[in-house]
């Protein structure tokens, strides 16, 4: 039988490092039921049998305010773990024990793993471990999560102390509250009020703390008891506010800290130097968050991240492309021409290949983000930019998601959406998830490049800068709009720790990167493959009817019937470059027939019909059916807009990297001008995210509702902006 152990502790206390150290690769990341909080589980074999370990979300306290805290608390209450291993940062003992005390008040069996003793020693903090253990009456084991030192001893202590619930710690909260608590405890016992799950005194304390989760449960359990308890609380609250100008919540926190302070003062801890003395970390902060240097360093670091991600991931992305090209080549020669071949190559291989092509990018991006997160720099970025983001209802920590998504043109919304996970505040996080797809990701760039080159060739740089600005302003304004309408709510407090800078552990970064990448790959195998096939079908079916196909066949035979057999022979055996002038001309006419056939097929396909159907509306934004199809294709991946435009304009598939022929065509085409081009640019910035991003939004927001919202809302918004621009533009110019 395995023993269930729970790892708990403050953020930045080394909890995840210890978890990785204990479980190694034997871990599994999932979600707690119904919420998007990550649940990490793993097993650890020790000399004392197999332990199953759950890594609780890092929290400072156990209130009902944050999702993490509620999740942690519910888990502890429902699962009755045999031991709560509380990782405590020795260099930050007083604040870390605040959580410990709350575990003990719940009556949970606790073992303290005293981490970062080395840091404490460096700061000349002396801790009497035995004394601490004796005063708190729980085992305390010094460990070093990074090096794994003390791991054996910790496991031994855990296994020799496993037990069920223990006697709750009783702290005095002052005479008024204490006597009320006694009374309430008795009442709760008598009525068996919520006692199936919770300790009586703990429930009473939660009533004093005005804990919404418990009081709501209480109302459901027994309204009469609930009212009586509320009555007692109200009386004490009134009394405290008159006599001491304070309230029970404040008193309770004060006394908890008071209790910790009194324990520490009994010779547990001694400081040889001023506790608030500047440490190395603070000295770094003086420079890194400096008013002038801070922003400059930040920009340099972001550029570094981009450079690292995009230049180094290019090589493995190339391998992926070659691999899928190779697989496609095999399929091309192995399968007979026809629908199956088209499905395998254009539907499955291109679709999955396109998605897996992101894998190296995501790995590199997360390697970088994990480094910044674990080192502590991410918290500083949030600190510096919070003022700006807050104006728009976001949070300082939104910055990473925006930048990764293409805040500086060329990111990718997929890792961007996933990077929003570093945000702990649910409302700001949702607003961030929904607005980062407006950033200019690398796949939108070919579309912009094509249009800018064709219609704004003289002002390329200015127009590109304008595009970046528009996407930022748009994203921030939409965030503001969402936060004052459907995601309304108070700003989450920015009471945040700036953890000391630490060199991240390689193991930690690799595990972190792998987790995210693997989650992404799993998606590619399921939902994304399905959508990719649907999109392929939309652009293929119903295809051309027989008379039409026959027409193209006839055109081909007309061309070939008038040329000599010598030239035909030449076409059969020679490559394009070696053809004679006559043969080349014939070849080109034949290719033109192919292109025209593809064009006719596309127009007749479901996507084409959708495109034609919407022409009536989209003409207000300046788009004809061809542009519409391209935009439908862009839902697969934004750069597909370019290649589909190529097919729609009968010049074959266009390589997004090489678009000269298409820009020439567009310049000459009917209905195209700078106005239409810019209208399309605006639409591309704002319309529905590509489906890979949509899938990620669904996962990160925890519901398909928000994913659907982003598709519909963004498209409507984009259409509105484009029409407005096009109509006003048509009048002005």
């Amino acid at each position: 039988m395995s023993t269930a152990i729970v790892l708990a502790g403050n953020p930045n206390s080394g909890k995840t490092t210890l978890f990785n150290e204990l479980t190694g690769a034997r871990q599994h990341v999932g979600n707690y039921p119904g919420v998007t909080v990550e649940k990490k589980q793993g097993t650890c074999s020790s000399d004392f049998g197999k332990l199953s370990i759950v890594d609780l979300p890092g929290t400072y306290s156990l209130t009902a305010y944050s999702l993490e805290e509620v999740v942690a608390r519910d888990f502890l209450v429902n699962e009755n773990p045999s031991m709560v291993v509380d990782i405590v940062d020795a260099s930050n003992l007083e604040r870390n024990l605040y959580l410990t005390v709350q575990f003990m008040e719940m009556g949970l069996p606790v073992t303290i793993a005293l981490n970062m003793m080395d840091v404490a020693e460096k700061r000349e903090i002396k801790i009497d471990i035995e004394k601490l253990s004796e005063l708190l009456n729980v085992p305390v084991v010094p460990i070093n999560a990074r090096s794994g030192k003390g791991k054996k001893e910790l496991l031994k202590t855990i296994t020799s102390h496993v037990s069920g619930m223990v006697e709750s710690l009783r702290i005095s909260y002052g005479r008024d509250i204490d006597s009320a608590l006694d009374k309430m405890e008795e009442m709760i016992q008598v009525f068996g009020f919520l006692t199936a799950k919770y300790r009586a005194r703990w429930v009473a304390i939660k009533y004093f703390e005005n804990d919404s989760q418990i009081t709501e449960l209480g109302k459901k359990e027994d309204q009469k008891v609930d009212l009586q308890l509320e009555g007692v609380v109200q009386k004490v609250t009134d009394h405290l506010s008159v006599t001491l100008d304070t309230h029970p919540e404040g008193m309770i926190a004060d006394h908890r800290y008071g209790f910790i302070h009194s324990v520490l003062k009994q010779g547990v801890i001694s400081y040889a130097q001023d506790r608030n003395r500047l440490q190395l970390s603070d000295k770094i902060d003086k420079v890194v968050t400096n008013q002038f240097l801070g922003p400059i360093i930040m920009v340099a670091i972001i550029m570094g991240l981009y450079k690292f991600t995009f230049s180094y991931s290019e090589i493995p992305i190339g391998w992926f492309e070659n691999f899928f090209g190779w697989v496609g080549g095999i399929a091309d020669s192995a399968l007979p021409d026809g629908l199956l071949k088209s499905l395998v190559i254009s539907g499955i291989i291109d679709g999955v290949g396109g998605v897996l092509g992101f894998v190296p990018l995501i790995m590199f991006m997360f390697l970088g983000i994990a480094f910044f997160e674990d080192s502590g720099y991410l918290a500083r970025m949030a600190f510096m930019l919070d003022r700006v983001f807050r104006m728009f209802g976001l949070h300082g920590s939104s910055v990473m998601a925006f930048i990764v998504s293409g805040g500086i043109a060329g990111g990718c919304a997929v890792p961007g959406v996933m990077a929003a996970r570093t945000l702990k505040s649910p409302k700001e996080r949702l607003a961030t998830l929904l607005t980062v797809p407006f950033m200019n990701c690398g796949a939108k760039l070919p579309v912009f490049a094509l249009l800018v080159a064709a219609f704004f060739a003289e002002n390329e740089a200015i127009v590109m800068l304008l595009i970046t600005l528009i996407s930022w302003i748009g994203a921030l304004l939409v965030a503001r709009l969402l936060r004052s309408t459907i995601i309304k709510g108070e700003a989450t407090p920015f009471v945040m720790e700036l953890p000391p800078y630490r060199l991240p552990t390689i193991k930690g970064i690799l595990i972190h990167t792998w987790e995210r990448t693997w989650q992404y790959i799993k998606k590619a195998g399921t939902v994304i493959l399905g959508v990719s096939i649907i999109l392929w079908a939309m652009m293929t079916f119903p295809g051309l009817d027989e008379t039409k196909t026959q027409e193209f066949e006839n055109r081909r035979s007309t061309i070939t019937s008038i040329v000599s057999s010598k030239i035909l022979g030449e076409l059969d055996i020679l490559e394009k470059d070696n053809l004679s002038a006559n043969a080349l001309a014939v070849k080109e006419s034949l290719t033109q027939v192919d292109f025209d056939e593809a064009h006719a097929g596309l127009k007749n396909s479901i996507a084409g019909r959708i495109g034609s159907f919407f022409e009536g509306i989209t003409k207000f934004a300046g788009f004809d059916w061809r542009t519409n199809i391209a935009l439908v294709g862009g839902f697969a991946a934004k750069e597909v807009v370019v290649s589909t435009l190529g097919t729609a304009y009968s010049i074959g598939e266009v390589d997004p990297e090489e678009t000269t022929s298409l820009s020439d065509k567009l310049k000459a085409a009917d209905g195209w001008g700078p106005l239409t081009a810019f209208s399309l640019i605006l639409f591309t910035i704002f319309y529905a995210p590509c489906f890979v991003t949509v899938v990620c939004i669904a996962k990160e927001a925890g519901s398909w509702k928000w994913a659907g919202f982003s598709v519909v809302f963004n498209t409507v918004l984009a259409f509105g902006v484009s029409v407005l621009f096009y109509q006003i533009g048509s009048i002005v110019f």
Partner: protein
Amino acid sequence: MNLRQMQVDQAGTIVSVKAVGELGRRIRDMGLIPGKEIKVQGRAPLKDPVSLRIMGFTLTLRNNEADHIEVEVQ
């Protein structure tokens, strides 16, 4: 004096924390309670939020959150 008005490097002792609800809880959970000594460590480039030192670690707080905290400056 209100925490918002404190200068960088100024130190003092917290006299009262007026915030209630979620903000109050978060502030207190991090140890910002009457009697604790704090020191203003720095401010973000746009002067908000503020970072301060308490019980040997660094904490950040927005100015409108600092408004709830009264400090007796040394």
